């Protein structure tokens, strides 16, 4: 191993050690050691506490219900879009992904208005004759309110995994089953579904972990008795009450158990596509009638999925809205007010700064790590790979809690200035995506492309700069946009780490505005609309800036 490589690996290992492993180990230590001796007392207290026990059960059910609803939504969609052609398909499949980039936390604010006792949805249901009396979505049925908002936000993740898995199933395998006399349903059950299982597992795991640890949505719906909110409530008295540490450890334990058991049952078998002689695309043209029906179905999902964001917009611009499906009159005063408020402008600036810094940090870290993993052989490569993927299994709330606990009193203390830690937290959490995106790029480009440059006289660095980087730039850009958008919308870390108002990122500012009695929801919604607009513009700008080159690169 060259000296330079060793140095780079040492720096990366140091970074991951300090900002990923140390906070978790610190929380573990605090949870298991009372005044220097090993003790399970905190866990006994927590488990004896009925509120905490219900919180655990609620979180678990919430995660389960969300995953099921998501699956029911995503699997049929995956089938429709990978196996059939129908009018408007390209546009609609693109729109299907929109909810992923919009924060569920902001959507939840709007949905509160739609889901109110005499809100739009109840009124629609009553007028349609589906229900007799309004459902109390925000009261007794708020569990389902949270599930609805989370499922509408998370189904794209499931959908992407399911359709990728389905696209990988060689149609010849299904034809072989049909050829031997199997009915369509039986073929699906015995051949297609088992082959899709790894992809479905991946989707389910991501969705269930997200739902299990989501802080923003339950907080806005005031569904406080879930683990995430319980942990959040305990961040204020961190030093006096170590029960928070124990709760965090429990959450980590449960997520790990979910992760490992489902991996054991579903994730074991990965199926490679059997042969290269595929029968080509198995997309079937639907008849006009069924085609329109398919279009309506996918369009309907898009519309429903955008409900929370439509609701946010309505909430922000309504003037009078009572007992009607849509507002009676509109106003734009809250947009101005929201920008004029002393919380908002700094928060927008903070968020843009944080997102940019974390995206750059992840580009540097992610591309370097992916390069090492893909192109260099070194001892400990497996370990580095595992460490980099660890944040996938570690909830943001756990990491934020760990940061708050272990960096207290140091130069990085988030109570003084949370910006460095926020930027680091955002990038650590999204590092796996960046590494995967770049690693995929490195694997896609044949090593002979680099060898050809070396062969003609280029050094290592020049080869990387002139050949490798341009070739993976589409992957890197996609990863960076992902990191940037996720950072803009990150909820748990922002809520926990940002304590001083001047350092609030957008999400925390929205949460703070929600607390204002008279016009809080409107102001928060207005800021939500602003942030959605920022996001749309930044994504668009990236697309336009690199549009042509991006298109070319994707055609390789």
């Amino acid at each position, binding site marked *: 191993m060259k000296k330079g490589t060793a140095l780079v690996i040492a720096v990366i290992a140091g970074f991951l050690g300090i900002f990923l492993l140390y906070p978790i180990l610190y929380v573990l230590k605090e949870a298991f050691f009372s005044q220097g001796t090993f003790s399970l007392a905190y866990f006994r207290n927590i488990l004896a506490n009925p509120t905490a026990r219900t919180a655990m059960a609620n979180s678990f059910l919430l995660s389960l219900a969300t995953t099921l609803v998501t699956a029911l939504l995503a699997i049929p969609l995956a089938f429709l879009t990978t196996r059939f052609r129908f009018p408007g398909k390209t546009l609609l499949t693109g729109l299907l992904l929109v909810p992923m980039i919009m924060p569920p936390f902001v959507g939840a604010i709007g949905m509160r208005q739609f889901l109110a006792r005499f809100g739009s949805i109840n009124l629609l249901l009553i007028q349609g004759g589906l229900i007799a009396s309004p459902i109390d979505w925000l009261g007794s049925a708020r569990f389902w309110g949270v599930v609805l908002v989370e499922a509408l936000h998370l189904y794209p993740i499931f959908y992407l995994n399911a359709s990728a898995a389905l696209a990988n199933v060689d149609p010849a395998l299904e034809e072989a089953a049909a050829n031997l006399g199997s009915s369509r349903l039986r073929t699906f059950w015995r051949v297609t579904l088992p082959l899709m299982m790894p992809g479905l597992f991946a989707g389910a795991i991501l969705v269930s972990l997200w739902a299990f640890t989501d802080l923003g949505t339950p907080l806005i719906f005031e569904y406080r008795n879930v683990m995430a909110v319980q942990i959040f409530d305990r961040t204020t008295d961190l030093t006096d009450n170590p029960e928070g540490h124990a709760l965090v450890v429990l959450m980590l334990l449960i997520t790990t158990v979910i992760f490992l058991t489902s991996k054991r049952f579903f994730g074991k078998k990965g199926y490679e596509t059997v042969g290269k002689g595929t029968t080509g695309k198995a997309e079937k043209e639907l008849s006009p009638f069924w085609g329109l029906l398919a279009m309506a179905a996918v369009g309907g999902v898009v519309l429903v999925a955008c409900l929370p964001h439509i609701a946010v917009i309505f909430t922000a611009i309504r003037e009078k809205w009572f007992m009607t499906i849509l507002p009676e009159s509109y106003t734009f005063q809250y947009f101005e007010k929201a920008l004029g408020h002393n919380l908002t402008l700094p928060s927008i600036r903070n968020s843009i700064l944080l997102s940019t810094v974390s995206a750059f940090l992840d580009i540097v870290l992610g591309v370097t790590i992916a390069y090492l993993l893909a192109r260099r052989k070194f001892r400990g490569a497996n370990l580095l790979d595992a460490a980099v993927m660890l944040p996938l299994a570690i909830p943001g709330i756990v990491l934020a809690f760990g940061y708050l606990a272990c960096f207290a009193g140091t130069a990085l203390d988030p109570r003084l200035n949370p910006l460095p830690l926020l930027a680091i937290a955002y990038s650590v959490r999204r590092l796996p995506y960046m590494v995967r995106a770049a690693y995929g790029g490195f694997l896609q480009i*044949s090593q*002979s*492309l680099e*060898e*050809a*440059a*070396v*062969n*003609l*006289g*280029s*050094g290592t660095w*020049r080869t990387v700069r*002139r*050949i490798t980087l*341009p*070739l993976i730039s589409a992957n890197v850009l996609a990863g960076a946009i992902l990191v940037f958008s996720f950072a803009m919308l990150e909820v748990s870390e922002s809520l926990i780490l940002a304590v001083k108002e001047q350092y609030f990122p957008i999400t925390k500012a929205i949460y703070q505005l929600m607390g204002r009695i008279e016009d809080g929801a409107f102001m928060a919604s207005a800021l939500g609309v602003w942030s959605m607009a920022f996001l749309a513009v930044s994504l668009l700008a990236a697309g336009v800036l690199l549009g042509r080159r991006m298109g*070319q*690169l994707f*055609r*390789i």
Partner: protein
Amino acid sequence: MDDIILKNVTKRFGKTMAVDNVSFEIKAGSLFFLLGPSGCGKTTLLRMIAGFCELDEGDILFGARSIRAVAPGKRNTTMVFQNYALWPHLSVHQNVAYGLEERGVPRETIRRQVREALAGVHMEAYEFRKPNELSGGQQQRVALARALVVKPDAVLLDEPLSNLDAKLRMEMRREIRHIHDETGVTMIYVTHDQKEALTMADQIAVMSMGRVEQIGTPQDMYRSPANIFVATFLGEANLIYGELVAADGRYGSLRTPLGTFQGRLANREMREKDAGCCMVRPENLHLAGSGENQIPVQVADIVFLGEAEQYLLQADTTPLKALAVGAGAGVVKGQQARATFTAEEALLLPARKEGEP
């Protein structure tokens, strides 16, 4: 340009000997083929000359200069990759210009030389296309231009035609040979296709399991292979095993269950009582001839090949093949016949005795 000399070159991958103590010389300006089945070490050898693979033992010299410690980019040996390895984000022009830029050639000169190189492979009309807008054959030509434009000391070609269809492959064989003759550059060409090697090469080194079995011109290798492996790898061969009953250094007699045959000896070390093998090419086995060696056979089947007919013969339990160009040998399926060949057409190769390793 210098001769390329390989001295005791050895490479292990784990326990397998990828290249096993290989030594030979490649004359400057020749079109040299490394031929062998997959896994024989030919590509490893090529990559060692290019510098992508380090030697465990031995040395590689360009003339008198060892290049073991020279970086791949400083060897001035350019490579044409099996998958062409054209950079998809750069245009044809930029691809070809790359090596010149690395060598610090002035921009105007680069432009001119790239044009000339592209004209040399008939690709001047495609200068500003992207590689993915070209067909496989066109990409191949660009890859050649990119390798040639820097005026390398040697061009290394790694199975360059294996991704092309049969017709295009024939065309490119002639083209590469033509380019070689025009430029006079040393070319080292790796392939597993014996036809390619026979039709194009100045010299062929046949490799098997990391070793060089024989080196020579296509004609010599085909007519006088050194051993059974080379005989069967280059073209088709009838083999009849037996024991030498006479050997005078140049000619010998081999007693086999099918009769005793006169033939040329493959080498001077072959002695009486040695195990041997009589090798006859199908086109040298005549069904209507009068050679001194004769075998009674039955015509088991006749295969029409277009320009020729192939006869599958059964001599006692030994299957034989004969080939007759044009009108055919005038025999029918099932018929008894007499297969003949002259002593000049038979080659007696060394063989292992039963029970010997």
